[in-house]
């Protein structure tokens, strides 16, 4: 047998590792800033660019796609070469992958604070960046599949299957969810509307959790945990079974994000059923990881790398137990729109993704620098800071969730709401938000300790950019009669990729196709619901751009305590012209779906200028720039044209009158404000925003009259 000599590419891994740490620290710092603003809105420094609504998506994107994304690439590029006994398929592709991804992150760092956002959660980036993401992701895919094809190892180890599934699914999700028609270079409208848009968004959103935050990390776990513990994974058989079950089931679970909304009941039930089943394969992965350490717990006591991994896997187990539980309707009623969800995702992000990344870095860096970890003690310090950080983060959030929910639903014996003012429920949980920020601070401090430790480690060693390796060439496989099909698949990467694609597509198709086939204009049509006027549309875009949806939902659920507080619950037919939907996922402030005509225009004006003047103690920051900046009157006709293409019934030729129409409505608002002693101009953003807010949820009120 000929032994071939080749070199592993460590350089690209090193770059990805550095990017992981740098973006991780930045992303968490932004998170800390956002957390602080929830109890001290002044922490936005009075700037529109650092206000909660705009930096929240920056934080989520930075942590998910910059921190975890780079960690995935670092881990995949490191482990795949070794598992497949070959250098990456093409060095140029590796570097396009690296620099392309960093440029995308950089563009997010610039555009999100500027208010360019599609408002789709975890997919906020605007269409040119979406296209870039798709391209770079495909580059990664080509590089990965290419590497798999030129491998020297016959069988693809289980980690590789997880990588393949992640690549395929993220590509599918990203492309479908990003369907949008551009209005101009940095503005687009989602191709889907209302209920459909919400379904597509959460089909994407949930599976971004599944195939960006879970499956790649399970792959990394299957490589780095056995390596760090120096013992094989507990059960390879279990890994096969839980792999197929996991990727097949996960894709169906999205609708559990939309329980009690105007999403059709069958879709909600489908999502719930699959979410509950999902616990089996999820725990399969957790059990497989933890049992790998069977008989090696003495090592865990001493080795900080294993400590990180054990807590990571435990956090994964907790989060995926919580997931099915949260998809039960009765539990979901408590968790949705409260901090429970925030706690849930952070157990996953801080515990599972964060800690596994740290364990991986602590293991990988000394390997590539051919040295030992500089300080075990500091790594232990990091471990405890991080663990305490997670506890200080999560526990107050659970308390906060229950407090808020209990207050929301509390009725007096007379049958009126005990806390009719939403703000009182927000103010009650402020101490919990302070503790949460403290937890975040601890966690971030731990990261800085790690940075110091890793730099010291690297300085003590010598980096091997191209690591020599040798392995026999891949033999032509001659069938020896008794061959098992899964074994055969594991040797056929393209076929394996196709199978994976089929497995994940079934769920997606089942969820999406029926809702597209339903002519929802007929099924849910409400005669009184009319398209937005041009000024309202512009106001809606300002609302989106300021990230208002990050704190305010537009979906009143059919609970007595919600209809009592806000008014008639939301109907599917009310959203048919909403590209994109804005149902929100968190209520830091009240729901706004029925806010239209509730207050005079001047109330909204004063509220945006100084929220505390209208709602004493409010944690909403002031938006003085809305009073000064003009909206884009020139751009309005294009927006109408694009909306018509998406099926919104604006009359042909309406473009000619759009600006006059908007001006007329704006002047009406200006006059009403004037009557209340407020001077403003019809071109100010605030006027458009007021137009939109006053329209919200009023269409069916007209019908009632």
């Amino acid at each position, binding site marked *: 047998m*000929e*032994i*071939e*000599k080749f070199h592993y590419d460590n350089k690209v891994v090193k770059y990805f590792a550095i990017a992981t740490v740098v973006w991780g620290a930045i992303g968490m710092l932004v998170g800390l800033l956002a957390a602080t603003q929830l109890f001290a809105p002044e922490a936005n420094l009075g700037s529109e660019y650092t206000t909660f609504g705009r930096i929240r998506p920056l934080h989520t994107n930075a942590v998910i796609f910059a921190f975890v994304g780079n960690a995935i690439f670092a881990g995949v590029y490191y482990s795949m070469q*070794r*598992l497949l*006994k070959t250098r990456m398929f093409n060095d140029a592709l590796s570097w396009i992958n690296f620099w392309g991804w960093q440029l995308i992150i950089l563009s997010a760092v610039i555009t999100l604070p500027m208010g360019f956002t599609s408002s789709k959660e975890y997919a906020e980036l605007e269409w040119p960046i979406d296209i870039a993401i798709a391209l770079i992701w495909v580059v990664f895919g080509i590089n990965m599949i290419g590497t798999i094809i030129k491998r020297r*190892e016959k*069988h693809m*180890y*289980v*980690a590789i299957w997880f990588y393949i599934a992640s690549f395929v699914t993220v590509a599918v999700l990203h492309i479908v969810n990003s369907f949008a028609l551009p209005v101009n270079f940095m503005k687009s409208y989602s191709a889907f509307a209302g209920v459909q848009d919400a379904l597509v968004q959460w089909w994407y959103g949930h599976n971004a959790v599944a195939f960006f935050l879970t499956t790649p990390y399970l792959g990394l776990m299957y*490589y780095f945990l*056995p*390596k760090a513990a*120096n*013992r*094989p*994974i507990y*059960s*390879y*058989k279990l*890994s*096969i079974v839980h792999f197929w079950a996991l990727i*097949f089931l996960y894709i169906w679970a999205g609708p559990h994000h939309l329980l009690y909304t105007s999403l059709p009941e*069958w879709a909600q039930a489908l999502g719930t059923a699959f979410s509950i089943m999902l616990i089996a394969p999820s725990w399969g992965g957790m059990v497989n990881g933890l049992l790998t350490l069977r008989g090696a717990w003495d090592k865990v006591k001493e080795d900080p790398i294993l400590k990180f991994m054990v807590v990571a896997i435990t956090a994964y187990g907790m989060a995926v137990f919580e997931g099915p539980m949260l998809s039960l309707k009765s539990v979901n009623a408590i968790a949705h729109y409260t901090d429970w969800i925030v706690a849930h995702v952070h157990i996953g992000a801080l515990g599972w993704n964060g800690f596994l990344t740290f364990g991986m870095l602590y293991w990988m860096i000394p390997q590539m620098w051919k040295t030992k970890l500089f300080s075990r003690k500091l790594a232990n310090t990091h471990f405890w800071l991080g663990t305490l950080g997670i506890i200080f983060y999560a526990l107050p959030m659970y308390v906060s969730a229950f407090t808020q929910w209990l207050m929301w639903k509390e009725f007096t014996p007379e049958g009126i709401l005990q806390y009719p003012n939403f703000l009182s429920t927000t103010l009650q949980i402020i101490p919990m938000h302070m503790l949460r920020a403290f937890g975040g601070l601890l966690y971030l401090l731990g990261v800085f300790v790690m940075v110091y430790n890793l730099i010291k480690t690297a300085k003590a060693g010598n980096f091997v950019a191209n*690591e*020599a*390796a*040798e*392995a026999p*060439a891949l033999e032509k496989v001659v069938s020896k009669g008794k061959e*098992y*099909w*899964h*074994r055969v698949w594991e040797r056929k990467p393209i076929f394996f990729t196709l199978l994976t694609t089929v497995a994940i597509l*079934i769920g997606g198709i*089942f969820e999406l196709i*029926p809702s597209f*086939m*339903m002519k929802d204009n007929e099924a849910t049509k409400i005669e009184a619901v009319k398209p937005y006027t041009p000024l309202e549309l512009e106001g809606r875009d300002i609302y989106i751009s300021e990230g208002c949806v990050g704190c305010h939902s537009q979906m009143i659920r059919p609970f007595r305590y919600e209809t009592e507080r806000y008014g008639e619950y939301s109907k599917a037919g009310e959203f048919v012209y909403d590209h994109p939907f804005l149902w929100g996922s968190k209520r830091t402030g009240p729901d706004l779906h029925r806010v239209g005509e509730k207050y005079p225009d001047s109330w909204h004006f004063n509220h945006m200028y100084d929220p505390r003047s209208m709602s004493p103690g409010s944690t909403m920051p002031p938006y003085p720039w809305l009073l000064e900046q003009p909206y884009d009157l020139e751009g309005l006709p294009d927006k109408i044209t694009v909306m018509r293409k998406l099926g919104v019934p604006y009359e042909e030729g309406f473009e000619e009158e759009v600006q006059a129409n908007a001006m007329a409505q704006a002047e009406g608002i200006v006059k009403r404000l004037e009557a209340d002693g407020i001077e403003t101009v019809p071109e100010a953003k605030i006027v458009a925003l007021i137009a939109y807010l006053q329209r919200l949820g009023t269409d069916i009120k007209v019908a009632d009259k």
Partner: protein
Amino acid sequence: MNILVILIIVSLIVAGGFLVAFIWAVRSGQFDDASTPSYRMLWDDATTKKEDKKSNQSTNHKQESHGN
């Protein structure tokens, strides 16, 4: 509502298919040797380390095999 009937039928067929495939796989011993791969992934470091130590001595061998 028709779509529901179709979905239920199709999903039962798919689920049944998966079940049959699974039972068949277990019966025909597909998962009998599911341990070697998990050991194999641990070996590569040993080879590399050995190779690193030997790298000064191995000369002919290296050039010969490079031709592949």
